[in-house]
């Protein structure tokens, strides 16, 4: 499936930003495209769940649960992606390739699997929405 383009990301960004602001109770101006939701906006795991449901309603799309993490791992078998809760070197390569919106210096090692969501930015969620739109279009 084609990767989201800059234009597609920009097209969904205003609604994604408003949805994030509503979910986190922050000002929409704080929701920059490159802000980390956890480190920059104090999001917690319940907020990610909230956000996914809100994005589904806002865009009338279906986002399977755990979709970001699943997509991030791609076709890499779980045993090659992580060992004892730490992302492997192969897993790190895969994450860097998938989360292109995240600056390289934020991929610190060792990276716990549980800390992968710390990398997610507003753009990560824009891409999630665009991929879901692509999937819906493909499905018919």
């Amino acid at each position, binding site marked *: 499936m084609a990767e989201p383009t800059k234009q597609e990301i920009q097209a969904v960004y205003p609604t994604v930003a408003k949805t994030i602001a509503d979910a986190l109770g922050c000002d929409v101006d704080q929701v920059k495209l490159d802000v980390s939701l956890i480190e920059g906006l104090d999001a917690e*795991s*319940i907020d990610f769940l909230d956000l996914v*449901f809100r994005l589904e309603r806002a865009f009338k799309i279906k986002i399977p649960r755990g979709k970001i993490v699943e997509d991030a791992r791609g076709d890499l078998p779980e045993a090659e992606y992580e060992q004892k809760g730490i992302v492997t070197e192969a897993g790190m390569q895969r994450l860097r390739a998938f989360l292109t919106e995240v600056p390289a210096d934020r991929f610190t090692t060792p990276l716990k699997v549980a800390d992968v969501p710390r990398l997610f930015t507003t753009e990560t969620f824009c891409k999630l929405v665009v991929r879901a739109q692509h999937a819906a279009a493909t499905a018919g």
Partner: protein
Amino acid sequence: MSGHFSAYSFVDRITELQPGKYAKGEFQVPVRVARFPSTLVAEAAGQLAAWNAMAFLEYKVRPVAGLASEIRFGPEVRPGQRLDIAVSIDTCELDAVSYSASVDAEGVRVLELDNSVGPMLPMEEFDSPSAVRERFELLCGPGAPSGRFQGVPQPDVEVVERVPEQRVVAMLRVPKEAAFFDDHFPRRPVYPGTLLLDAHIGLSLQFAGESKRWPMGTRFAATRVLGMKMRSFTAPGEILELWVDVDPPSDPTKSKCKTGVRRNGKTVATGGIEITARSSN
């Protein structure tokens, strides 16, 4: 574990069930309870959704309070009334169940709940999977005996800051011991989010009653809860800070508030409460 499946359980019977899709059930509010707050009606709806989801996912996980986009409260339920509960499950997966629900009492709609989400956590952490399975089978069969619920204590709330017409802050002392902790949950006692909401609604109603905006004798009821989000668990004995910020008036019969709960400066829950004023006549 004497209060297990009784001290904070609000489904007596499951009358219709399609696992992962919908369920209908009943709960008889005992005649002798002093009060049955509307938030317990919401709890009953959440519990019916939970029974459905737990059975669908083979008792590996159980949902806990998480999100509710909107809860609309109708007339208060009276002791002795029977609740007819219906839940419609939108999605049910290992990380969360999302559902909507409605509850009637003697043919009158007393609660509607839209877009609720219960995050799933490992069942073993909270309860015995086999005990939960057995209980579910009982509920789907002859049903549990009614009258088990003994009521809940009034929340211990003390106002510590008050800015008339604008803001009120109070401390909520969660009891160290209470019967409902035996049921919610047997292996990990957690102060129920619906009791926290009840305390918050009580504080909001009290503050509305102090307002000069309304004529003397006006009665108030919480009619809606919006965007409720529970961020963390509250253990027995904890002290919480409840705050209520009243929005500038925009409707002659309503007062809307933003509300939150903090523990040691960290947010535990957020949401909004709408209070409706009713003339005393």
